[in-house]
């Protein structure tokens, strides 16, 4: 491993650690990303409890909602990475880092790792709440897939949010980061499976990559690991990370060169 790559990994690790300890130092930043998925889980499964009577793959709308809530939690964790980067740009931390010998790529790699780790926290909270509500996790492999899907979505949303932060250079771009993430989830299979959807939503959710990720997680949660659903979820995650990652890398390349 060359010196440059070792240094990049070292700095990325430190930036990831810095983002993680912010959870303890600035709980007001991270708490919403823990509380909101819980709120969504309780409110959605309670309000739409009757939907469990429809052919959605389970009679429990709570079980149906758990993957949606884990994805929301991971989405919040990803947006948090963008907000942290925007705050660092505003505060001058990024300028100091760029003028140092630290590799630029660490500016993205560190927060991306942090987003994935934060998604583990949020997914654990949601799964624990589901367990309290009587929904058991889908075995070791199934649970690992639910965590993986959430983490990949967290990385994709972090790439998107950091791409926005690198261009807007202000935390005031937060609504744009959040809006795209939430619209992407809501226009997938958030509330009902595709078989029940109709009209414009069915067309969009058929093409929305988030649908495949959510279906992979939900299929696993409800019936154990089914690779015919997991593989499309992995491919969709790879596509989103490639697109959003390219968007973030381009923003990073342009940073300070405009």
């Amino acid at each position, binding site marked *: 491993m060359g010196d440059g790559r070792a240094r990049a990994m070292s700095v990325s690790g430190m930036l990831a650690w810095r983002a993680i300890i912010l959870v303890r130092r600035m709980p007001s930043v991270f708490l919403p990303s823990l509380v909101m998925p819980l709120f969504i889980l309780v409110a959605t499964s309670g*309000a739409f409890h*009757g939907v469990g009577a429809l052919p959605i793959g389970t009679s429990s709308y709570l079980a149906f909602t758990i993957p949606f809530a884990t994805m929301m939690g991971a989405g919040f964790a990803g947006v948090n990475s963008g907000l942290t980067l925007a705050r660092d740009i505003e505060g001058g931390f990024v300028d100091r880092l760029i003028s140092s010998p630290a590799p630029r790529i660490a500016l993205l790699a560190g927060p991306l790792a942090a987003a994935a780790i934060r998604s583990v926290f949020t997914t654990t909270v949601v799964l624990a709440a589901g367990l309290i509500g009587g929904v058991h996790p889908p075995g070791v492999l199934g649970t690992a897939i639910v965590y993986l899907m959430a983490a990949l979505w967290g990385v994709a949303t972090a790439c998107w949010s950091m791409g926005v932060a690198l261009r807007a250079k202000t935390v005031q771009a937060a609504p744009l980061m959040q809006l795209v993430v939430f619209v992407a989830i809501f226009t997938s299979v*958030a509330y*009902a499976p595709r078989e029940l959807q109709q009209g*414009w939503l069915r067309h969009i959710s058929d093409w929305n990559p988030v649908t495949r990720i959510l279906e992979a997680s939900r299929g696993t949660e409800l019936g154990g690991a089914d690779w015919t659903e997991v593989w499309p979820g992995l491919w969709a995650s790879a596509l989103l990370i490639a697109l959003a990652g390219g968007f973030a890398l381009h923003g990073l390349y342009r940073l300070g060169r405009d």
Partner: protein
Amino acid sequence: MLVQTRALAWRGVKSTLRFPQSWFPALFFPLVLMSIFTASFDRGVGAIPGFPPVRGFLDFAVSGAVLQGVLIGGVSAGAFFAADMEGGFFDRLVASPVSRFALLSGRLVAGMLMAAAQAVLFVGVAVVFGARVQGGLAGFLILVGLAGLLALPIGGLGILLALRTGSAEAVQGMFPLFFALLFFSSAFFPRETMTGWFRTVAGLNPISHMVEGMRAQVITGVDVPAALLSLAIILGLGAVTVGLSALMLSRRLGDS
């Protein structure tokens, strides 16, 4: 006093319309959610035990969207009031011969006009996409009237928060509370399909009864008892929040 109220209400309407960031969320989010819920659940409503008989989910959903829009608009009204305080306009008004009553009523009337217009727009959009108001013109007018009056307790609460905090950001920060109240009610799905503690909470939540009064006009026809219950809750809560706002205003101005 009426002239002052009218002038301040008109200013409130114009200032709201001038800033898309204040009215756009109140239109965009309820319409999008209404559309997503309709596309998700329309096919299955007939098979859900306890779901009231409806022509389609859109008929059921439109009242929830109206209520959601009024809630978001109420937060914006409070934030505008706080922004007037932050920007010094409020102080200039206080120093002028404008009555204390008009300071509140101007913003409240503006909110009520916006809420009624929003209800007309939402029902219009729903009708274009196939919804039907079973109560006909009378049911439609009752719904719009209730929506307009609903802006009174919600706008009163927004102004109360503005007077308490003096910060538009703090008022906007209360949005998650409103959002939680909305979800823990029958705004999006009927109480009859809920179970356990959630159903109890939804039953105790005044928002459920407010929205059900509006919804009945759309899905069953003109329903005077439901409308009167909704009206009583709206006016009762309005008396509390507007009364507390007036008290807070009086304290702030050192009248008491």
